[in-house]
């Protein structure tokens, strides 16, 4: 707007200029004005003196006119001075047409001069300013008051197409999506001269992308499992549309927000799924813990078995060797007198055995030589290891 004011300023000036004859006439009448006062006196006799006075008056008024005109000219040219703000660029039009192409046509921030309006026109564009556009087709209506208070309107049983925004997901479900795009102007010329309102087209590109991306994602993927993928798809689509339509803007997808949620009408059901999924994860985690314990224990048991095997092996070999050694040691003694050796060893062993035995019964042969009958009563129950000795 300020830019328009500028251009109008000079316009008005030029008008006063073009009315050049106006001031001229005025000057005349003016000169008559002051002339009127002295005229009555010299009108009749002194023609010379009145002409003289008139010419003097004319001269002085011409001088005034000249000064005024010179002032106007100076004003006219001075009105072409303008500044370009720090976040802006400006484009200078010559008789309405752009004076250059691309970067060369852009006036950078600072003080500049141009011819006033009908010749040059200055269009300022807030190039570095960040513009924000929010999608308008995917969310339920929230009034600004509710948004400020962090409240939500109550959810009805259905979604009214006239008021409620939503998207359709790939699995035929409904969800709400809101995207916020922050962009800068990258091609100021296209931005101002090619489009009536870029923000409308950007918003619709965003709206289009909401539906395009939603149409490929299931509600679970978009709202939970693959949020980043969904955002990526959406942003790719926006970028493609912006490029295809040459909207003259650029944006960083990382600076943009995408929110996708299931409809509030089915929120409880979605929460139940989340809970079930958590339970599942918990059950699996517990099982994994148990499995780890089992594995660790198994490792230990296996080691024990292996070690026992090894110990047995050592024992077997050692005892065989010991037996063999013992045998070799006794052999000469045995060969020299087998009977003696036998008796001696047997007796020794018997002594040891008898010494160890808890109960010893000695049955003496009957005097008549007939065998004795011996009856042994064994407990039906097996003997307990620590039980007191049975008689």
């Amino acid at each position: 707007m300020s830019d328009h004011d500028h251009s109008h300023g000079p316009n008005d000036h030029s008008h006063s200029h073009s009315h050049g004859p106006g001031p001229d006439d005025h000057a005349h009448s003016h000169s008559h004005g002051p002339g009127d006062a002295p005229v009555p006196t010299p009108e009749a006799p002194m023609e010379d003196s009145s002409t003289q006075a008139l010419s003097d008056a004319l001269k002085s008024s011409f001088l005034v006119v000249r000064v005024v005109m010179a002032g106007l000219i100076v004003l006219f040219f001075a009105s072409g001075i303008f500044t370009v703000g720090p976040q802006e660029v400006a484009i200078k039009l010559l008789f309405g047409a752009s004076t250059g192409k691309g970067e060369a046509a852009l006036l950078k921030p600072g003080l500049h001069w141009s011819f006033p309006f009908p010749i040059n026109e200055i269009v300022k564009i807030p190039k570095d300013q960040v513009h924000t556009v929010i999608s308008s087709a995917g969310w339920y209506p929230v009034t600004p008051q509710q948004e400020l208070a962090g409240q939500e309107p109550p959810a009805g049983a259905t979604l009214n197409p006239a008021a409620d925004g939503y998207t359709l997901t790939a699995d035929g479900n409904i969800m709400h999506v809101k995207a916020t795009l922050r962009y800068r102007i990258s091609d100021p010329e296209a931005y101002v001269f090619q489009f009536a309102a870029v923000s409308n087209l950007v918003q619709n590109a965003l709206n289009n992308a909401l539906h395009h991306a939603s149409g490929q994602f299931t509600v679970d993927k978009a709202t939970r499992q693959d949020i980043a993928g969904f955002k990526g798809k959406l942003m790719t689509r926006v970028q493609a549309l912006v490029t295809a339509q040459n909207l003259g803007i650029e944006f960083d997808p990382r600076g943009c927000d995408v929110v996708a949620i299931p409809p509030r009408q089915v929120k409880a059901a979605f929460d139940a799924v989340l809970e079930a999924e958590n339970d599942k994860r918990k059950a699996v985690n517990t099982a994994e813990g148990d499995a780890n314990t089992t594995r660790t224990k198994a490792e230990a048991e296996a080691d024990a078995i292996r070690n026992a095997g090894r110990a047995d092996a050592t024992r077997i070999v050692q005892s065989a060797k010991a037996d063999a050694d013992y045998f070799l040691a006794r052999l000469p003694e045995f060969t020299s007198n087998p009977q003696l050796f036998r008796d001696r060893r047997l007796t020794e062993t018997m002594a040891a055995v008898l010494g160890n035995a808890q109960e010893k019964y000695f049955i003496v042969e009957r005097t008549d030589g007939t065998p004795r009958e011996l009856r042994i009563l064994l407990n039906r129950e097996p003997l307990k290891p620590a039980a007191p000795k049975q008689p």
Partner: protein
Amino acid sequence: MRNPVTFVVGLVILLIFGSISFLFQVRESEVAFLTTFGKADEAVIKPGLRFKLPWPIQKVHRFDARVHNFEGKFEEAMTLDQRNILVLVYVGWRITEPQKFNRSFPGGVDDAKRNLESLVRSAKNATVGTHNFSDFINTDPAKLKFDEIEKEMLLQVAGTAKEKFGLEVKSLGIKRLGFPESVTQKVFERMKEERQRLVKQFEGEGDRDATKIRSSAERERSEKLADAEAAATRSRGEAEKEAAKAYKTLEQNKELAVFLQKLASMEAIAKERTTLILDQNSSPFDLLRSTNSLVRPAGTK
């Protein structure tokens, strides 16, 4: 020519009036054309300073040449598979042939928008009618025909708009897709059912996975134990083989070997909690027999 200033001023005034009558500007964002005595010239005038004959002869008609955003109505359309869906389409349009535009819409832009709306509606209905609902939404991106649908609509709209209205429709896109209000409730019910199914599925999966994990651990355990047993048996076997070599020595005197073995066995067997019942023939109690026999001579033997 008394005063050169008057002359210059007059000249300037003349110049200004002349330029106002004979020249005109077309701004960068505009297109224009001239009419000569009301008859339109063919040429479309581009931005810049242009020449024309003064007013009663030629007149300039200017139009905004920038792309405008236009949105149709969010209305029902029937897909090929007889599903009612709501589609809202937006277009980006601009005036490229101002003469044609002026002729078609003497009422101006509002007039044009009304015509554009019906044009967009018929293109939308025609295109939606040739596509299944699955072309609009599909889990398989390859089967999604979103772009094709938009392209088809654009082709129809752009052709007519250019030919009849002098407009270029630069872009066309679907802004909104939806179900009729009554259908949304059914969708919610279906979504709830789906969720319940998912809950059951997760519960089942939890049990199944847990069992799977536990049983696989058990299996690993028994494998490990079996391996260990095998290894232990193997080492025992090797030890036996080794021992057998040692026992070869015993063959030098079998009698002694057997005797020693017997002794060892006896010692081992009768180690603890043993009850021994012996008769007098067992050594060393055979000594007692001799005492017995010493007594006996009084008896039978």
